[in-house]
């Protein structure tokens, strides 16, 4: 059924259609609307049987999901930003124990300075935690990915994060097709745990493992992630046959075949990128887009194949590794090893800074002209940074960087006026 609906509500309805049995979450912007909607649906009996547990922290939220999942219930939680970091210990634990929990990440920057707006620093910080990570491009896909996520998680007995851009998707009203319960039921069977806390057949879960077996356990986790590389396209195909639309998969290509310059990105920024690419292609530019839908496991082969003919690759990253550079670009360089394709990192939209078509167009033109640096920051106020650096050299006194930066930027904008 088509509905004009907020992204968060759409995701909540998708989760509800997956018949979760235990939902447990702690509020944090921009995830709140999702869990509010779910708590309401559990109260009204729209999701039944299901327990909605209000907890005292994100650490507890995921821990409850861990217990519920181990005891055989389909478990769901959602968080973002500081919340994800606060539950980090349990994040690694859930994957180590092989528990198929699904968690929505309403992507948001991490403080300090505190910032509630969107970028991908949070989920990227936990990219090596053993969870699968799927990134939604729009709200329809966010909804569809949740349905696939439960199936994927349970097939592999591994937890899955569905990442959607905070505010940009979670708070956007769009027309979304919400499938029927019968359709979802036909796609997603009930959860059958691999291992269960059951008095009739006692097992010990979470034993202490020493050096003699730990490497093997980790290797198996890796091997199971690699199985996902085959399973994800299968489930996406099955999904499209069942639901009549495409969603998910490892990657998706947009005019990238034969294009000299390929823009790589994940998440909602793809929409804006595609608009700009359309305009440039209309002028005859050889430019296309590669969307990464699955970031963990990283689809090395699929990416290599898709980019093998490109002359240059530009990665738009909504997070970055401080002291190092691009996170996505790093994986890309690995995928392109030996192909000698210049790969540029463009860090964009940190802490919710808008990624405008104007800026992207300027950027892409620079790239097409072969004049793009290996690492750059979209719309960086270089003047403000330089002034702060100069000031720091003069005044040898430590203090919050952010305040000075904001002052500098404010001063600069006054000067412009």
């Amino acid at each position, binding site marked *: 059924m088509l509905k004009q609906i907020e992204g968060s509500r759409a995701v909540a309805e998708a989760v509800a259609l997956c018949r979760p049995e235990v939902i447990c979450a702690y509020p944090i912007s921009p995830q709140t609307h999702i869990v509010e909607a779910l708590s309401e649906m559990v109260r009204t009996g729209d999701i039944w049987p299901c*327990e909605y547990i209000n907890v005292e922290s994100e650490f507890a939220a995921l821990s409850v999901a861990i*217990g519920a999942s181990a005891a*055989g219930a389909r478990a769901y939680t959602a968080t973002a930003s500081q919340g994800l970091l606060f539950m980090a210990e349990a994040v690694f634990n859930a994957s180590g124990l092989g528990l198929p929990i699904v968690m929505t990440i309403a992507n948001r920057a991490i403080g300090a300075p505190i910032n509630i707006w969107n970028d991908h620093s949070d989920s990227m910080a936990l990219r090596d935690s053993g969870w699968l990570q799927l990134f939604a491009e729009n709200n329809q896909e966010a909804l569809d990915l949740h349905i696939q996520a439960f199936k994927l998680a349970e097939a592999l007995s591994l937890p899955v994060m569905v990442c959607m851009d905070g505010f940009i998707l979670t708070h956007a009203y769009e027309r979304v097709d919400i499938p029927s319960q019968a359709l979802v039921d036909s796609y997603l069977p009930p959860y059958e745990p691999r291992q269960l806390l059951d008095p009739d057949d006692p097992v010990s879960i979470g034993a202490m493992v020493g050096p003699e077996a730990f490497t093997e356990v980790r290797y198996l986790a890796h091997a199971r992630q690699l199985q996902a590389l085959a399973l994800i396209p299968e489930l996406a195909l099955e999904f499209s046959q069942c639901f009549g639309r495409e969603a998910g998969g490892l990657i998706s290509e947009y005019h990238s075949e034969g294009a000299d310059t390929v823009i790589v990105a994940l998440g909602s920024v793809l929409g804006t990128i595609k608009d700009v690419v359309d305009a440039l292609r209309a002028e005859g530019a050889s430019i296309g887009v590669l969307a990464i839908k699955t970031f963990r496991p990283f689809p090395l082969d699929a990416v290599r194949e898709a980019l093998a003919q490109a002359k240059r690759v530009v990665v738009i990253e909504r997070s970055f590794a401080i002291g190092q550079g691009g996170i996505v670009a790093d994986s890309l360089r690995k995928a392109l090893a030996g192909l000698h394709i210049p790969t540029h990192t463009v860090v964009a939209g940190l802490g919710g800074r808008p990624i405008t078509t104007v800026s992207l167009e300027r950027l892409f033109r620079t790239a097409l002209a072969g004049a793009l640096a290996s690492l750059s920051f979209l719309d960086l106020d270089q003047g403000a940074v330089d002034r702060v650096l100069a000031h720091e050299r003069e005044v040898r006194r430590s203090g919050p960087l952010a305040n000075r930066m904001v002052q500098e930027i404010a001063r600069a904008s006054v000067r412009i006026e």
Partner: protein
Amino acid sequence: MSFQPVRFYQTGTYTVGNRLLDEAQRTVQATVARANSLTSGHRACQGCGEALGARYAMDAAMHATDRQMVVVNATGCLEVFSTPYPETSWQVPWMHSLFGNAPAVATGVAAALRVKGRRNVRVIAQGGDGGTTDIGFGCLSGMFERNDDVLYICYDNEAYMNTGVQRSSATPAAARTATTPAMGPAPGNEFGQGKFLPEIAMAHRIPYVATASVADLRDLEAKVEEATHLRGARYIHVLVPCPLGWGAASSDTIRLARLATESGLFPIFEARFGDVSEARPIRRPVPVDEFLRLQKRFAHLFEPTIDTERIAVIQAQADRNIKRYALLP
């Protein structure tokens, strides 16, 4: 599934398999067909109070629930000595997740069982004093506040034993630990209230809070059994001396637990919905010295000179308990 047969049989007025009692009054451990949660062959130190306490508590719970239970364990000695992969000593469904989240994991298990309609399966969480009073305290308080249907048992050995005897918030005043060395003008742990979790649990007004010790295993069993039959959040705090951490003889575990009680340092009581319903009177009062002297962690109070001042403060703490819980008639 096969259960290990009972190998030993204790006698005596306070002991578990008391054959002087009526058959009906004998406890779980006194019967050959008893439930057996934790098999022998685990790797606890000799004389470990925690191994003993956990075993009796879990066996009693197994008996009371007719084996329909799930156990969640925090990180700590109990977890480490009982589950070195690929071995496990547990004969009950058992799960360890992290140091600080056992109460929340148990909440999740309880929720799953409720959804699955398995109301007869009971959930028990357990941890050391560190996992309970420090790192897991937030999760535990949350579990109490929601009145989740979980019995939480804390095995209090008064320090972080698993990581090598460091101070916890349950470490008593003046005790020497690896992080509160017996040096300087005020050697050992700082003097203070400590964090006495049973009273904090009571402040949550949960249905049942009790303290117990391994000196009276019949009492421990009875309290576990009682708690198992109730619903909602329940808390039992068991004093379990640790020969290694306390610097005591392995053969003194039970004696130390008894002296802690009889000196008034560790009151034994039950509370329902926040009010004390019963306190166990002290049978043979002893000064705190008798308890302190047997342990190397308090040696600096006696050598090279007797630190009467600091011992007097500990005695005052014991006296305050005696008054507060009316432990002497």
